[in-house]
């Protein structure tokens, strides 16, 4: 499974919605329930799934799915 597919599973799990489909441009505006609180849950879930750690500043800089993918790729 590539990064985007695994990331999509994480999104589906955190937001409890099997219908979610993500693309590089997907932002908080596109997903119901993605606010600053769930953003952290998302980041932590991504950390756990990919075995990486993000700093505070990186966490708040991740604005869309593309940002997530790029940061994951730079770590893995």
């Amino acid at each position, binding site marked *: 499974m590539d990064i985007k597919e695994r990331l999509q599973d994480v999104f589906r799990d955190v937001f409890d919605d099997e219908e979610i489909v993500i693309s590089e441009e997907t932002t908080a505006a596109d997903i119901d329930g993605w606010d600053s609180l769930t953003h*952290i849950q998302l980041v*932590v879930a991504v950390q756990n799934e990919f075995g990486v750690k993000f700093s505070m500043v990186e966490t708040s800089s991740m604005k869309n799915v593309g940002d997530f993918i790029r940061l994951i790729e730079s770590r893995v």
Partner: protein
Amino acid sequence: MIELSTKSLFFVLLLLLAPFVLRYRWKGRKTVFLILNIAVISLAAGSLMQLAITAVWILIPFLFVRFVKKQQKLQPVLIIWLIASFVYLAGYGFLFSVLHLDLILPFKILGLSYFLFREIDYVLQMPYLKEQGYACDLTDYLNYVLSFYTLLAGPILRYKAFADDFHKDEDQKGYIPIAKQELFTLINRVVNGYFKVYVISAILDHYARYWFDGLKSHSSMLHAIVAFCIFAFFNCWFIYFNFSGYCDIVIGAAGLAGLEIHENFNRPYLSCNVIEFWNRHHITLSEWIRDYIFMPSYKLLLSGPLAKAAVAAQAIALFFTFFVAGIWHGTTIDYVMYGFFQGLGIVVSLLYREKRKKLLGKQKNKAYENNRAVIWITRIMTWSYISLTFSFTGYPVMPLFLR
């Protein structure tokens, strides 16, 4: 040396003349702004020693970012030092007495609490901004920290936003024009701001003090409670007009100079819960504490001990965040209570919202939140709570209760 405030003639003249200076694009523009900023802070300083201490305290974070090699590792050390030195410079009296220290400085540094926020933002963001091509430039840094527009009481600007905004249109030469409509709007905003502060909030302040002073001699408990509520009413509206008026002045004045400052208020007393209130009142503070206190603590809790209890982690992180924010507002025990009550209000709002979402489900919950009666009742409840807790800011309420 001089008492600096929005009514100081010096400050008013500065606001009037700065647009002519800052709207003109040339390579010396940022230096001119720096000269103005240094002039303001020098004039406001009470003594040479105060100025020297302020200068050193402001320069240290820049020197760290500019010259220190292993930044990621040493950042926490600098941040802790910044906070500790801030606590000392600000004079947190009750901490000193707990530690039996008698080292309080004989002066208060104007704008110190806002310097702290800007310095922390700079230190934490610059490593990433450097990668994006931002220069670690002393003039830019000093202009950001000292900007006379946000010196007195914010709003709290982020370095990236400041740098992008200050350096925009630099490819152009000469004066950047302003449309007539915008000119009128901004001047109106500044004048309205002054009106809010020196007319409206002055009247409200007068009545708030009158009712607070009357609390000392009350004939009965009921009388005291009613008087307290009246005091709280005048006080909370005083706070709104005083602070949002100031923001109108500086945001409008900066706009005339071609600089954009983030909004700080959005009809706060229309909030339906305490969480919403903090998204409408002192917005730039809420955003800063969300990014630099809430998110790290929430993330820490969620990654470790409370991995399976997201709501509990949120509640603890939120309480901690607002407690700290409350204490930042002031150095006495009243502000500790203020922080406690803000934290409490936030947590109660959060838990109630989560419980309701679980019980009602998505559809019914949305209907409930959009119900007119619910909206007005929750607005009144929220405003009441906020106005009562606001009484801890600026008035020695604790001594009153302890008697």
